[in-house]
């Protein structure tokens, strides 16, 4: 009997899984086909790294390694902030989110798909930087270090996805790119992702632990032994707090 109450129970698990996979696949394709998103997201971190980490620093492998760690965080952060912030704002404004909410979309699928998309873009960005670092920057790491650094970079997508999602629930579709940039670029500088904090006035270093990207950056630097020496749990704890906090804030905004 295909009763109203029974149909959720009858729903085979693989069909549900297929829904999640398709949602993520099409979210990824959708953004890949939006050059305004995909080109800056994939290429800017690599271009910046090539400029500041390789060309301007004239073959200093230590600086190239340091900047490889922090630009990886910078790149993944961009993909997550823009992937969530801008698309959620646009989906809200144009009514696509409303249609999605009216459809029997599996629970959490909307956010999970964007998360998967941010992680996939993050993997591309991090791999691209790793190739540049190894070939052009003279970065030399042991295999476990490469693997761990890649993991730290990609996991960085989580807190910034949460922040991006929250921004997307606040801003209008047209304002979202500007709002995201206003968060993205200053925070990257203040957190020492573009330049080591030691090269900036002392107050920057003092305030840095306030900014979420600082903690992601420090975790990445810890892998290559160049961090400021704070404990891992502090960084992970801060990032977990940011992730949970902004997801909750976004959820209450979206539920309205």
């Amino acid at each position, binding site marked *: 009997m295909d009763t109203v109450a029974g*149909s959720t129970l009858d729903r085979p698990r693989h069909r549900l899984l297929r829904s999640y996979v398709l949602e993520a696949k099409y979210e990824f394709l959708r953004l890949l086909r939006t050059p305004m998103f995909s080109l800056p997201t994939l290429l800017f971190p690599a271009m910046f790294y090539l400029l500041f980490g390789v060309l301007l620093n004239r073959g200093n492998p230590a600086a190239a390694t340091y900047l490889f760690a922090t630009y990886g965080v910078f790149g993944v952060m961009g993909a997550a902030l823009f992937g969530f912030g801008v698309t959620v704002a646009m989906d809200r404004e144009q009514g696509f989110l409303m249609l999605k909410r009216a459809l029997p979309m599996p629970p959490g699928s909307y956010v999970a798909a964007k998360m998967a998309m941010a992680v996939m873009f993050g993997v591309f960005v991090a791999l691209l930087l790793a190739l540049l670092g190894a070939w052009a920057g003279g970065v030399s790491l042991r295999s476990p270090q490469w693997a761990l650094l890649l993991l730290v970079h990609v996991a960085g997508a989580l807190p910034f996805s949460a922040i991006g999602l929250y921004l997307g629930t606040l801003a209008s579709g047209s304002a979202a790119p500007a709002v995201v940039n206003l968060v993205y670029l200053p925070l990257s500088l203040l957190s020492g992702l573009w330049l080591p904090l030691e090269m900036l006035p002392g107050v920057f270093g003092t305030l840095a632990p306030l900014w979420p990207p600082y903690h992601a950056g420090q975790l990445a630097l810890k892998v290559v032994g160049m961090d400021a020496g704070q404990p891992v749990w502090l960084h992970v704890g801060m990032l977990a707090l940011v992730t949970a906090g902004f997801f909750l804030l976004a959820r209450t905004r979206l539920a309205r």
Partner: protein
Amino acid sequence: MHAVQPIPLAQLRGVVKRFGAVTALERVDLELHAGQVLALLGANGAGKSTAISLLLGLLEPDEGEALLLGSPPRTLAARQQAGVMLQSGAIADTLRVGELLDLTRSYYPNPRSMEECTAIAGLEGLLGRRYGRLSGGQQRRAQLALAICGRPRVLFLDEPTTGLDIEVRQSLWRGVRELAAGGTSILLTTHYLEEAEVLADRVVVLAHGRVVADGSLEEVRARVSQRRIRCASALDPAEVARWPGVRSATRQDGRLEVVTDDAEDVARRLLARDPGLTGLDVSRAGLAEAFLEITREQPSQEAA
């Protein structure tokens, strides 16, 4: 009285919905039963879209309740038996029609095949096209395909043909009639009365958030006593307009056209005054006249 009333597929019970100081719906009752095509009519701002949003669970009523297949509309099982085409239906521009269908079909337990969706919505040859590159009419057809792909028992169409030219509208209507003939119950909102006349077998008229008429097309039309008389006559429309019971008299395409509450008396008088009169035709007011009449009777409560 029937001993057992089947549960309505979609139902509003004493629903009140306010947005700030504005009351969008004021104690609205609405029922869509199996096999019906119900048109929800009303001017802009009458509360049509609010009613649909409540039935879809996109909004929560302030008072009363909204039910979809007897359950709260946010229930996944209820939504799996509903299809929807929203008015502000922007869809991811960069995805192809086939991809959108593929994704939406995956939400439903027993979806229609791609071929079936394409045929009903008239999307032949467009599956590979990106949604953003479709014309307005093709986009609406793609939205219809997404709305019906889950083989819904109940279909919500919010202003499905607004802004489309007549040919595209008619092709959409064909699709909708096919679905209705296949047993799908449909609730559509529209401000095209012609659309309600072509598609619906029941009409609910909303004005200022209240239901002001609810019944079959015939019943709603009969709410107004007006009829229209057309004939070829040499009489002066200005003079006829002054006769008792005549609401208006005009000359259109060389024919005299009289709108009246008392068709028999006026027809007798016309024949008496103009022995040369030919081609007499008396028709009941269309839904358009009925609609205007019914909504005009309602004092605007938000005017202040």
